[in-house]
């Protein structure tokens, strides 16, 4: 492995929701081009952790560095990080009052100050990438869940981010739509994007992950390459989790 400095680094991160400690002493690093899959039982702090990376949640202790920027209270820094870190949500969160193409271009136009024509060309390019170029002028509510999530992926890509975060991108989808979204994610992974995915899709993890992170009760219990993680997990907790999730 090369000694490139990590593009994301979390050191001793703690996070509280009121009296409840959601994250305890999280140490976690992602190198450029690395694909990390975070798994674990619900409530284990997976989402909270990746939401801290683009500061949708504020951490209470420790340091988070993204692409050389230390996350603090400086709004300029936070916005700079967010422009380079795309995020795909469980609930898609497309803007319902805008067409698909407008959903894709609003970021480049308003944040990157790109002109409209260039932004639209960019939007169509990424819509093509996720295989739904024909949906550009529809509204999100006219699309299926799988299509909406692919638009959401394209929306993030339009900002040409260095890192993509996925927060359970397939959990709100009907089963027959999961594969089309996973396919788009695999293609993205193959293009060399740095990715952190919270997901229960272990098939996807096996195919693309460079590193598996297993969390429980707000702690990282195990970090291992997927081959090792799936065949011989070190911790009992991870073994139990895998037994439950893989028995079908």
């Amino acid at each position, binding site marked *: 492995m090369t000694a490139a400095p990590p593009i994301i680094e979390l050191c001793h991160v703690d996070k509280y929701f009121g009296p409840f400690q959601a994250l305890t002493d999280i140490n976690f690093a992602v190198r450029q081009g690395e694909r990390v899959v975070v798994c674990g039982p619900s409530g284990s702090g997976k989402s909270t952790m990746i939401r801290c990376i683009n500061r949708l949640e504020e951490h209470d202790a420790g340091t988070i560095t993204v692409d050389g920027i230390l996350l603090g209270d400086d709004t300029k820094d936070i916005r*700079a990080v967010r422009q380079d*870190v795309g995020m795909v949500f469980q609930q898609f*969160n497309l803007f319902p009052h805008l067409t698909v193409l407008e959903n894709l271009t609003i*970021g480049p136009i*308003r944040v990157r100050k790109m002109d409209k024509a260039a932004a639209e060309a960019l939007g169509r390019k990424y819509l093509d990438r996720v295989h739904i170029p024909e949906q550009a002028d529809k509204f999100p509510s006219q699309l299926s869940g799988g299509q909406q999530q692919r638009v*959401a992926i394209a929306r993030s890509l339009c*900002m040409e981010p260095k890192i993509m975060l996925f927060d359970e991108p397939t959990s709100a989808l009907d089963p027959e739509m999961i594969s089309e979204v996973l396919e788009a994610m695999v293609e993205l992974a193959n293009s060399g994007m740095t990715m952190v995915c919270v997901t229960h899709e272990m098939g996807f993890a096996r195919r693309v992950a460079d590193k598996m992170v297993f969390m429980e009760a707000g702690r990282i219990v195990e970090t291992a390459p997927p081959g090792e993680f799936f065949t011989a997990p070190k911790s009992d907790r991870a073994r139990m989790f895998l037994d439950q999730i893989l028995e079908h």
Partner: protein
Amino acid sequence: MRRTKRRSLHWLDYLIAAVVVAFIAVIWLRISGTLNYKWQWERIPNYILRWDEADGRWVANLLLQGLITTIRIAIYSGILALILGTLLGIARTSTNLVIRMLARTYLEVLRNIPPVVVVFIFFFFLSQQLIAVLNMETWARGIARQDDIAVWEFFFGDMRRFPSLISGVIVLALFESAFVGEIVRAGIQSIPRGQREAARSIGMSWTDEMRFIVMPQALRKVLPPLSNQFISLVKDSSIISLISVQELTYKTVELVASTRMIFEAWIATACLYFILCFGLSLLFRRLETGGKHKPR
């Protein structure tokens, strides 16, 4: 089980109608026996539109003048109230405690004082000083003396009355903005958190997030209560007759004082308000159902 609405009349309906008519007739007879009043309905139309012998054209008389002023005031204070109310609504949802408390105080003060009292306080303590400070009186008189004032008059009526119109507009807007603010706040809070997170996650600033993501959705959602509030504003505008803004109610008081046609004048005014407000509510209802085609 849901009961379907009947479209034709039953014999019972006629009976109910007959009872109501009979009841009114009895009351009417009893009153007219004691009331010594000479009805002069034929004079009312003249107070709406009057034939000007000298100019040889129809001109607006007291009631129509008043109605036009009411419409002007409603439009201007409606716009102002929408702007103030939007700011207030945003302030109410702010993460900053001081801003939130200021907005809450403004709201609670205006909401817990009767409108008439608000009008007087504002007029004597604020509006008159403001108009003096800004030298608005002289400015307006200056304009009134110019030759080409058609545009000014179209928008503001008699320019000598401009300061009073402006205080009326401001006081009404301040009062209504409290309610508009609550409506806007509800609208903002109805927007799912995910929308704002998505906006932030692509690096939008707070201003862009509000302007392009939250407010367009929030305002579309609260359009029905906002249009209701606008109709309330039209009705509430009668209160500012108390500070001598010459709108419909003020003009009616004048008319009654000079002609003693108490009943006719007030009933005519009531009809004018009704036509205006009911017309607006029909219009808004049509706009609402018309806008349903757009997916939300």
